[in-house]
């Protein structure tokens, strides 16, 4: 009897986590991908974060984690990952990345016009902290309070960085329009 109920509890738990991954996996991937140079590293980071989140949630009834916590753990995994790679390896990855033209963190096949391409390059060209806030706000599904919790900053700082990032993007688009007109 105990075995059967344990088995059912385990199945229920696995289903809950898999549903959580189906709902949030793509968001986590967007965040991870903009922190590294290629798809494989991003997927490895998510794998690593998942194991850590599981361990953390074992003390909380094995329920799937809140999204801000997931991003927070993923963020530290990304930082560890970056340190491990080392400068030489980063150069090698940069070379590999340039040749792998299909591996962008935003889907180039979905772009309908030049403006989309400019926006994509502009977002990729933002400073790391600004790009992180934009990613979490636009595609990550977080509020400024949740972003602040994830990045260990104040909500005001999160909002300011977001505003500043959007202004930069707007300026880049306006520059493009100006170039086209004349």
């Amino acid at each position, binding site marked *: 009897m*105990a*075995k059967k109920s*344990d*088995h059912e*509890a*385990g199945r229920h*738990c*696995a289903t809950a*986590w*898999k549903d959580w*991954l189906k709902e949030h*996996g*793509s968001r986590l*991937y*967007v965040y991870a*991908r903009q922190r590294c140079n290629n*798809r494989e590293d991003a*997927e490895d980071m*998510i*794998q690593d974060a*998942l*194991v*850590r989140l*599981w*361990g*953390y949630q*074992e003390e909380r009834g*094995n329920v799937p984690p809140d999204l801000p916590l997931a991003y*927070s*753990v993923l*963020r*530290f*995994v990304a930082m*560890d990952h970056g340190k491990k790679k080392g400068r030489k390896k980063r150069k090698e990855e940069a070379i590999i990345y340039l040749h792998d033209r299909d591996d*962008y*963190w*935003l*889907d180039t096949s*979905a*772009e*309908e*016009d030049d*403006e*989309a391409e400019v*926006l*994509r390059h502009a*977002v990729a060209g933002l400073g790391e902290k600004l790009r992180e806030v*934009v990613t979490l706000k*636009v*595609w990550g599904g977080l509020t400024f309070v949740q972003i602040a919790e994830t990045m*260990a900053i104040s909500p005001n700082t999160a909002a300011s960085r977001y*505003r500043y990032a*959007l*202004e930069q*993007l*707007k300026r880049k*688009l306006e520059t493009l329009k100006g170039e086209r007109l004349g």
Partner: protein
Amino acid sequence: MADNTSIEEKLLRKLVPNDLSQEAKDRLECTVDDLVGASFESARGDATAGSKSSNSLRWAWKVAAAITLLAALAVTRQAILSDSAQLPQLAVSEVTPQTGPDFVVLKSTHQIDAKENDGLIIPNDGGTPHYRFRYRVTDEEQVRDPKTGTIITLRQPRQEVHTIPVTQF
């Protein structure tokens, strides 16, 4: 603000993030199954030990103390035997316990099974921000009685939590 809203709309409309590959999704689901399996197996093991666990621990430490004492006796006996020509068998058998003093240590390990980084913790009560690392550690000692073949394993899993306060920003 309206300008920013239009930029936001463009970002949402024109830029579509890539998704995880199917291979990654499958791998993550397998990982979940493995984690659930391991977690609920160990929980079942703890449940069957249940109320007897504290008694088992007491027994285990008594056995460990007995093993240490017997090992000390064995070393002493060996020293005496190597120096003396012959000892009365009766006297030796009176001292030697039924299981024999010659326990063989098969394994003695201190293993770090996993390290988890909880990241930066900012307490809600205004406490000092700190980084928290959790280590799952297992100490294991295994001995064998060569006469009966009995193997005694003492395994003590535990979690060590290390916190590193943040002193600079």
